[in-house]
């Protein structure tokens, strides 16, 4: 590649910790990769898998979900529910051939502006290396049909093989 690929990350930030961490990073003028577009949710527990899939489908190269540290959730334990859903979602995405780096979960408290900035930098680097997600081609298959429908079992290897061949 002659140029660096600039990925786009959709960030779901919880109102109480992570959005404030992002505010803090800005206020402190911490420069980090301008590759994240943020959405404020009240709690990371509000982030339904549908929203993550929507972002990937609409062209995002990655999704970052950020919430309060376990035990510090403003809503007591919403972040733990996020963790449960996230774990399941990751397994689903792996079956689609979506690389694990593309969807990440981060705990960032309101004081951890630098941690959030670092995470965005790190994720941007990882996604630059991976290149664009190309949902239609790599997840739905080049002609738009669902690859899993054609290969009910053992499909995982085939999908990733194809990915390697394409990338």
């Amino acid at each position, binding site marked *: *590649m*002659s*140029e660096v*690929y*600039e990925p*786009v990350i*959709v960030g779901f930030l919880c109102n*109480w910790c992570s*959005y*404030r961490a*992002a*505010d803090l*990073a*800005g*206020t402190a*003028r*911490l*420069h*980090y*990769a*301008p*590759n994240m*577009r*943020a*959405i*404020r*949710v*009240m*709690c990371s*527990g*509000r*982030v*339904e898998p*549908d*929203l993550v899939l*929507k*972002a990937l489908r*609409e*062209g*995002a190269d990655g999704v970052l979900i950020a919430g*309060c540290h376990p*035990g510090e959730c*403003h*809503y*007591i*334990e*919403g972040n733990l*529910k996020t963790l449960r*859903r996230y774990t399941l979602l990751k397994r689903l995405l792996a079956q689609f051939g979506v690389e694990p780096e593309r969807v990440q979960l981060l705990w960032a*408290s*309101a*004081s951890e502006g630098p941690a959030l*900035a670092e995470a965005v930098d790190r994720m941007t680097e990882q996604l630059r290396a991976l*290149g*664009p*997600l*190309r*949902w*239609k*081609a790599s997840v739905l298959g080049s002609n738009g049909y669902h690859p899993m429908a054609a290969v009910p079992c053992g499909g995982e290897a085939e999908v990733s093989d194809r990915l390697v061949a394409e990338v």
Partner: protein
Amino acid sequence: MEEKVGVYICHCGTNIADTVDVMDTAQWASEQPHVAIAREYKFMCSSLGQELIENDIREYGLTRVVVGACSPHMHEKTFRGACQRAGLNPFLFEMANIRELDSWITNNKEAATRNAKAMIKGAVERVVLHQPLDYLPVEINPHTLVVGGGIAGITSALELANSGYHVYLVEREASIGGHMAQWDKTFPTLDCAACILTPRMVEVGQHPNITLLTYSEVENVEGYLGNFTVTVRKKARFVNEELCTGCAICEEKCPKKVIDEVFNVGMTHRKAIYKPFPQAVPMYPVVDRATCTYFIKGKCKACEIFCPAGAIDFEQQDELIQLQVGSVILATGFDAFDATRIPQYGYGRLSNVFTSVELERMLNASGPTAGKIGLRDRNTQPESVAIIHCVGSRDENYHEYCSRVCCMYSLKFAHLVRERLPEAEVYNFYIDIRAAGKRYEEFYHRVMKEGANFIRGKVAEVTDIARTPEEEGKLVVQVYDTLAGMQRRIPVDMVVLSLGMEARHDAQKVAQLFGLGCDLSGFFIERHPKLDPVLTMVEGIFIAGACQGPMAIPESVAQAAAAAVRSSGLISQETVLMEPVRAHINEAKCSGCRICNNLCPYTAIVFHAERQVSEVITAMCQGCGTCVAACPSSAISGAHFTHEQLMAQVQGLLWDMSEPESRELAAV
């Protein structure tokens, strides 16, 4: 009906305009679907900027407003107000944070402008789906709970009670007074702690507006701002408070002596039935169940036999009391650092190494030595005393922070030791002297002039192994003197470790009980470190004193008074308006699967078995949206964060990504 959106882009002086091409962004925005008008302005939050929006709403009949400016945490309220003044429901407004999340994080103008457009597009797509909402009025219960009966809790309780409001004061120990009751003199004025504290304790005990619950702990907290239900366990004292006169005959007659670990930090004995200290409030003693002979062997009851009032009651049980309060002030204080965690200072191993708390008790005229300074043998007066600063503080192995009070109380020790033992040499080993406070620096100079020695350096070790004859039988303080640039070994008779302050060992537990957060050091997190130091992230729960961070008495008292004012402010409003961000279940769609029931951390979702549907109790819902995300039938909608709104926002955010293939080619 097609919505008419007004988009307003703020320059924020140069804060945004230097990085984001605001002119281009406004021009672009005006061409987007739904957008009726787009403008940019130097300072959108100024009164002129707000008027601009208000006039446009009236003139162009705008039905939605988007402002691209700073963080919603900064100015969402401001612009909601502008909408409201122009007759638009404040929730038909959305903010795009193009400052903190965009212009301030990069110098790349192209990327920043692209992000600004994306965020504004996301906001526009979202705002057209917004629904008008009304703030929820919440009635405020006029009673307040204060947790912790130290100087901070006492101050909060008295401030509120004297303003005419009723207060429940809950204290874990048998008496209020807290740490301050243990101290001897207070710096820098050297007035005695008891002289200024005990009148306030008595006032608390007698105040008609204060219900004092000592020997009690909060066990459960439910509810929300204005309406908390708090369950308090009042531990059995085995003394009937109605009958007890506080004559203390029981204490005299009790045959069981135990070490007083709490108030006198193990330096003396108390009885199994005891008052923590003579001026205790309330004056009733408690029977210590763990050591009382009757509870261990099943017989004794000497106290009961001798009590002239018949107040001893061995049948007493713990009581669970439910309190209804509108707000809570937490003033749970601090723990002193555990000196045994630094083995090289020898506490617990070398008998004449003392902690600062022990020295306080020793200096106190009503303490275990009646104010005499002596070594552990209780007879020998020390001829030389080393005071080691920053024990547990300013040390990356223990606590990185400065405990703020130790310099000053160490200087006070230097003064008091020389006052009582004029012949004794006093050495202060310090890293820096931090005497920032009213008349603190003057006190430091006074102590220096009095002839105390100051050695700048962090003590490496305290040892009893002598290298020279004059070190024989002494404690040797090994230190690198950073001013003289040399190693020193200073033999002394007594070493005092100036302990730092740390968060209570159970602060985390208390935080969870009340739904608060703790910072990395374990202290409770305030809403804003500068502008809102006494409110927590939970509406209606305030913090005061050293549970928020290390602080001395004056700051604790100031915070306590501030918390009381905030609490009384809520009460005087009678009702407050709460954000209407709440979940709601559409009964027609609800399948009755009950997945949401167990998810709710506030048990705000009830199941109606007869109709096989769940319902959200609006007053209890806090609006996190966890149930909304989980509902498999999409029956739950979260006001202001609906599925449709968030999906539209995602789509808008990625407006320029619809042709990822072509984008990729351009990049290659």
